Structure formats: structure tokens, C-alpha cells
């Protein structure tokens, strides 16, 4: 267990090495170094995990303090790691999936002029993420929290010579800052209440945090989570974050970073136990996010946008679980989601590469003939996310729905929202599958469809209405459209489709990309084994993280579970069948379903843009004017006053000593006269 420091140290070493020599290395070597660093970290995680498993349950907590970070009076922060079942579980899937995605990136980023830089950022990201989950106290976690935010920013705007990508990175960064305020305020409040920010100490004295304080702490950290984990109201950055390279979307914006909010709240479960109605807020915000994002995913035509909204929606599921005290369900879903969503993103990347960087699904179709490996693996991911047994997603999603059902008071309502979301999930994922791999028509062979270069407009929708909305939309609402072909001449353009011609023949991706797909497909297939519901002996994950989690509620009894599971499976099948009718058999016009309001994600982003761009900007201008006029004016006024006074008084300093002597004499005499008069002589 003493090896725990090596887990983040290896990616840091990889980062430093690439920082030093990354530019000089020939193409594959930078990727190999980055991949080996993370793979080594995964091996160390496995060793540490086995060591931890061999310990008796009560000894599965190991604190490694590397140095004293901030000794400030009674405020004392160590830089160290907390190793327990929760953190090592996170480490295992972060480094495992991270290594696979590094391997995949060697193929995906082939020929990119900034190849070495990409792996440098990826390694730094993995290191920060490991710091986040391994941190021994809130401040170390915060360091990792900010680190992943910074890496996310760099990687979203990795192809920054396209302005839209740079804007998307900025948007993610700024939106996350709002959440980070919550993190900092929450940390302060914990410190004031408990007198320590160590997780061990928080667990020990969480009883001291009661009532309103616990609610406030929980809500502040939930605000942090809404930023990082893309929940309402701060989810708007995640769909735009798809501007980054696809491996980044898979690693950061699907599998790891966006789940750190879920991790944080699970870590703080001793406080959440006392947080009262904050848990209701979390559950309902999660439910609303899940439903709205699933609705938005139905009308997206960019394959990565579908997956992005799907990620937001699945994260909503995890927060439903957190809010219903079902931490095992949240972490279980976090892991299975990491498997199948990373798989889906990497599969999408493989499709995008096969289709000459075209991301518009309306130009796909029938691809299963050309890229069979990608088709099969993405198909497994599709079944997993749709909730079809025995794939991984079914077990975890079902556990969350069961936990929601068991909530006091509004449980069935919460379950119903989750259920509708699950149907929508099955629907939009089937839509993605059919538009990409089935459909019978190879749409890119149709020159008219290729010429129509506005992927943001849903098929057959009223173009005027959408354009009107576009006008008010944020500039950051990414148009992957061909608006910036001229900026991309110097390297191969990733967001453009200029390579896609009617005679294009899709080619299967190289082996380095297919291996991660196959491994992840295997994990998406069997991931459910982590926590099967049938018997207590099969609750491996629950038993494993049980010592870390406080105040977990029990799931309903077996009979209820069976009924809920059967209803959920039926829902998923209905969703898939309906999508089959619409998109394969064309019984219903898709335009009737893909409303502009869905394509624009309920205009939430557009509303933000309008508010911040209109009254918001006016308010900011007002604040700036106040600063320039009143605050600066006061300071400058003092300076001008002093200057004017000096001009008046300057002649007194004549430089003639005798005048000064006369002044001293007159002053002395005047003083003497005054004293004598006052003293009554």
C-alpha cells in the first residue's frame, strides 16, 4: 500500500518527460511514452488494490502523508493520499480506461502536428484526476479538481486555430469556475464547522455538522458538482466540449472528469447523511437533467452531440442515485457508464475517422458493411446504455431506478422520470445506430445531402425558425458546419467534411484503435458482474465500498426489484422498437419528433447567451463604469487634490535659508506668546 504515491507519480513523470522532449520525438514515441505511463499507473493500482483486498475490512484505510503542505497556525493541511476502497476503485477505472484511450489516441491523432503535446496534456489530465480521487483532504482534491479543469480547457480547444473550438474551451472553463466557487465555499464551511478538511477527520466528526450547516455544505458541493459534472443549470459547456478531439471526449467528458462530482458527493457521504432536503434537491436536479438532456439528444444530428447529451443525461441518473442515498448505485453506474460511454465515444471516433471527419449522422448510413468491428463494438455499447440485460448498463441503471423507487414520499415520481429517461435513452441510441450503421441508404453518396452544409438544422425542420434561434444563440453554440474551412489548411481538418465525397469508401480503423474498442466492449458486456442484485454474496461493489460510505439506504425487496426490472426492460424494448419504426421503417416522419426546441436543448444555452449578452453585459459594463468612475475617480481625486495643494504651497520652499530661519523665529515667538497667554502670566 506504500506504493500509492506511484499511481499519480507515473503520469506526472510522463507529463514532465513529454514536456521536456515531446516536441523532438517522432510521432508514435510520444504516444507510447504517454500510454506506458498510464498503463504503469494502472498496474500499480492493481497491485495496491490486491494488497488492499487482502486486508481485513476495518483496516482498508491507509493515509500516506508526503509532506506538510500548509502549516498556518491551527490550520494545517498535509499533502497526502487517502487510500480506501472508494479511491482505489476510481483509480482502477481511471487508469485502465485512460490507458486504453491513450492507446486509441496513437491511432486517432496520427499525423497531427501537435501529437506530442496532445499526450502531454492527456498525461497531465490523468495525473490530476488521480490526485482528485486520491486526495487525503478537500484541498488536495481541489488541486486535482482545478487540474482536470485546466486540462479539459486545453484539450477542448486543442485545435485552437478554429475560433469555435477556442470559444468552447473558454466556455467550459468559465462555466466550471461558477461551480468551483461552491467547492471553495463548501471547503471553508467544513473547516469552520469541523476545524479540519481531512476526509478521515470529516468522517469522524461529521456528527458535529448538523441541520442547516450540513444542508449548506451539501448544496455548495453540489453546486461544484453541477459545474464539473454538467448538471442543470451549468450543463451547457459539455455539448460544446465536443469540439475537442474524440479521445478527449471519451476520457474527460464521458468516462472520468465529469463523474468527479459524483465521486465528491460520495466521498462526503458522512455529511450528506445529515443534509436533509439538500438530497431532495440533488435527486430532482439529477432527474430534470436526465430527462431534459435525453430529450435534447433525440434531435441532435452530430454523432458526438448525441453522445454528449447522453452523457449529461446519464450523469443525471448518477445524481438521482446520490440524492436517494444510493451511493453504490451511483458508483456502479459511474463505472459501467465509463465502460460503455468511453466505448461509444471511441466507436464514434472510429466512425468519424472512417468518414473523413464527417460528424453529421445524416450523411452516414449502412456503415456496418464497411467497418464491422466498430459496428459490433458500438452495438454492444448501444445495448448496454439502452438497458438490455445482460449488458452492464442494465444492472447499474436498474439499481438506480430501484433506489429512486425506495425514496420516501416522492419515490415513484422520481422513478417515473428515470423510467421515461430510460425509454428516451433507448430511443435516441437506436436512432444513432440506425442512422449510422443501418438505414439501407449510403447518404454520403447523395451529392445533394453533401452540398447542404448546415448540420445544425434538423432534417425537414422549419429552417427559418431554427435560423432565428441561431441568431440569438451563443457564439459558442458550436457549428461544426463548414464555416471555417480556410483556417484549417495547415493540418488535417478534424471537424470538416471536405474529405467526404460521394465516391468515398469508409475504411476500418487501425489496430491500435480497435483493441481499446474490443476491450471496452468486453467490459461493457460483463461490467454488471461487479454488483449483481440476485444475492447478497454477489454485491461485490456494495460490500467493497461499504466501509467508506455512510448512511446508505437499502434497496427495495427482491419482488419489487423484479417488477421494476421487467418494467424497465419493457421500456427499453419499446424505445428501441419505436426508433426502429421511425428511422428504419420510416413509418413516422422524424421531423415530427426532432423539434427545434429539442435540437437547441430547450433553448437553455440560448437563453443564457441572450441574458448574459444583453442585460448581463449591460450590468457588467455598469460595474466597469462604476469602477472607472467612482472607485478610480476617488483614488485619482485624492491624487489631483494633493497635486493642487502642492502647487499652492510650493513657493514656501524658497531654498533661502534665512527665510526658513525667520519662519522658525516667528513660529517660536508665536508659540511662546500663545503659551504665556494661556498660562496666564
Amino acid at each position: 500500500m506504500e506504493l500509492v504515491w506511484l499511481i499519480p507519480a507515473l503520469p506526472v513523470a510522463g507529463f514532465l518527460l513529454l514536456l521536456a522532449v515531446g516536441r523532438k520525438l517522432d510521432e508514435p514515441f510520444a504516444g507510447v511514452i504517454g500510454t506506458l505511463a498510464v498503463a504503469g499507473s494502472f498496474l500499480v493500482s492493481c497491485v495496491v488494490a490486491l494488497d488492499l483486498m487482502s486486508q481485513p475490512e476495518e483496516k482498508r484505510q491507509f493515509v500516506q502523508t508526503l509532506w506538510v503542505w500548509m502549516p498556518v497556525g491551527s490550520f494545517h493541511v498535509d499533502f497526502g493520499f487517502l487510500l480506501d476502497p472508494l479511491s482505489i476503485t476510481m483509480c482502477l477505472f481511471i487508469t485502465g480506461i485512460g490507458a486504453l484511450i491513450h492507446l486509441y489516441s496513437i491511432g486517432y491523432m496520427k499525423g497531427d502536428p501537435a501529437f506530442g503535446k496532445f499526450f502531454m496534456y492527456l498525461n497531465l489530465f490523468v495525473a490530476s484526476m488521480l490526485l482528485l480521487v486520491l486526495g487525503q483532504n478537500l484541498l488536495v482534491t481541489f488541486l486535482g479538481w482545478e487540474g482536470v479543469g485546466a486540462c479539459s480547457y486545453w484539450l477542448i480547444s486543442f485545435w485552437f486555430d478554429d475560433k469555435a473550438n477556442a470559444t468552447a474551451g473558454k466556455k467550459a472553463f468559465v462555466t466550471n469556475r461558477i461551480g468551483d466557487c461552491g467547492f471553495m465555499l463548501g471547503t471553508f464551511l467544513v473547516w469552520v464547522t469541523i476545524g479540519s478538511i481531512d476526509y478521515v477527520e470529516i468522517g469522524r466528526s461529521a456528527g458535529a455538522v448538523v441541520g442547516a450547516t450540513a444542508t449548506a455544505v451539501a448544496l455548495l458541493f453540489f453546486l461544484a458538482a453541477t459545474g464539473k459534472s454538467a448538471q442543470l443549470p451549468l450543463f451547457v459547456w459539455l455539448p460544446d466540449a465536443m469540439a475537442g478531439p474524440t479521445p478527449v471526449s471519451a476520457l474527460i467528458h464521458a468516462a472520468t472528469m465529469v463523474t468527479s462530482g459524483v465521486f465528491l458527493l460520495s466521498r462526503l457521504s458522512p455529511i450528506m447523511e445529515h443534509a436533509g432536503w439538500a438530497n431532495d434537491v440533488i435527486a430532482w436536479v439529477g432527474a430534470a437533467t436526465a430527462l431534459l438532456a435525453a430529450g435534447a439528444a433525440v434531435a441532435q444530428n452530430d454523432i458526438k452531440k448525441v453522445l454528449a447529451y447522453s452523457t449529461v443525461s446519464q450523469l443525471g441518473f448518477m445524481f438521482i442515485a446520490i440524492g436517494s442515498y444510493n451511493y453504490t448505485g451511483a458508483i456502479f453506474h459511474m463505472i459501467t457508464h465509463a465502460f460503455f460511454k468511453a466505448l461509444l465515444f471511441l466507436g464514434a471516433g472510429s466512425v468519424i475517422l472512417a468518414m473523413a471527419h464527417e460528424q453529421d449522422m445524416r450523411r452516414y448510413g449502412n456503415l456496418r458493411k464497411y467497418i464491422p468491428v466498430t459496428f459490433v463494438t458500438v452495438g454492444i455499447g448501444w445495448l448496454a446504455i439502452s438497458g438490455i440485460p445482460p449488458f452492464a448498463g442494465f444492472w447499474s441503471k436498474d439499481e438506480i431506478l430501484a433506489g429512486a423507487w425506495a425514496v420516501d414520499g416522492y419515490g415513484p415520481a422520481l422513478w417515473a422520470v428515470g423510467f421515461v429517461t430510460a425509454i428516451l435513452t433507448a430511443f435516441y441510441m437506436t436512432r444513432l445506430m440506425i442512422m449510422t450503421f443501418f438505414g439501407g441508404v449510403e447518404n454520403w453518396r447523395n451529392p445533394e445531402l453533401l452540398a447542404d452544409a448546415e448540420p445544425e438544422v434538423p432534417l425537414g425542420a422549419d429552417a427559418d425558425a431554427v435560423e432565428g434561434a441561431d441568431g440569438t444563440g451563443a457564439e459558442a453554440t458550436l457549428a461544426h458546419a463548414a464555416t471555417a474551412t480556410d483556417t484549417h489548411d495547415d493540418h488535417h481538418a478534424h471537424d470538416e467534411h471536405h474529405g467526404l465525397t460521394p465516391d468515398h469508401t469508409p475504411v476500418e480503423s487501425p489496430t491500435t484503435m480497435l483493441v481499446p474498442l474490443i476491450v471496452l466492449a468486453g467490459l461493457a458486456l460483463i461490467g454488471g458482474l461487479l454488483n449483481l442484485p440476485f444475492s447478497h454474496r454477489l454485491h461485490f461493489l456494495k460490500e467493497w465500498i461499504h466501509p467508506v460510505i455512510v448512511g446508505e439506504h437499502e434497496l427495495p425487496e427482491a419482488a419489487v426489484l423484479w417488477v421494476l426490472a421487467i418494467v424497465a426492460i419493457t421500456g427499453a424494448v419499446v424505445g428501441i422498437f419505436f426508433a426502429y419504426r421511425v428511422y428504419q421503417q420510416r413509418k413516422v416522419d422524424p421531423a415530427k419528433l426532432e423539434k427545434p426546441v429539442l435540437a437547441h436543448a430547450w433553448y437553455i444555452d440560448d437563453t443564457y447567451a441572450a441574458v448574459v449578452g444583453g442585460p448581463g453585459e449591460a450590468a457588467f459594463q455598469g460595474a466597469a463604469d462604476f469602477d472607472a468612475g467612482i472607485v478610480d475617480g476617488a483614488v485619482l481625486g485624492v491624487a489631483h487634490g494633493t497635486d493642487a495643494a502642492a502647487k499652492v504651497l510650493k513657493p514656501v520652499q524658497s531654498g533661502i535659508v534665512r527665510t526658513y530661519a525667520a519662519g522658525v523665529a516667528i513660529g517660536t515667538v508665536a508659540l511662546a506668546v500663545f503659551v504665556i497667554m494661556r498660562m496666564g502670566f
Partner: protein
Amino acid sequence: MFALELVLTESWYLVLAAMLFSIGAAGLMIRRNLLVMFMCVELMLNAVNLSFVAFARGLDDVGGQAVVFFVLVVAAAEVVVGLGIIVAIMRRRQGSTADDISLMRG
């Protein structure tokens, strides 16, 4: 024989000290020669010394005399520094007066 009763009380000394001080102060303000101004300052210092001694006698307090020693020592030091400055100025500009040295005017 008409004998003038002349009793020298300390008031005489104080009056003398006041006169010396006034002469020194007037000289300082009127004269422009640096050296003379310096001598005037010495005159004022010694006038104060005289008043200290007179008070020490009148009030029967030896503290006044002790202060005089300090003033003497400080005055000696001041003469050293002051004369050094005056000599340096005289070397640079022949026959200059105090009013010419007004580089620091506002």
C-alpha cells in the same frame, strides 16, 4: 560716599542671555555670509547655555549644568560638520552667499 548697591541676581544673566540670543537670531536672518551666519548660530547656542547655567544656579539644580555639557559637545560636533560643509561650498563657488545656495527650492 554714594555706593551703588549692585546685586547680580540671576535675572541679569537671563536678560543677557536673551540679548545674546536675539543678536544671534537677528544676525542669522540678516547676514548672508555663511560663516557669519554660522557664528550667529553659535552665539544663540551659547546664549541658551548661559540661561541654563543661570537657572541651574537659581533653582539649585545641577541638571541645568549637565545639559550645558551636552550642548557643548553637540555644538562642537556641529561646528566640525558645519565648517566642513562651508569649506566644501567655498571651494566650489568663490564668494557665494547663503541665498545663492537654493537648489532645493520648491
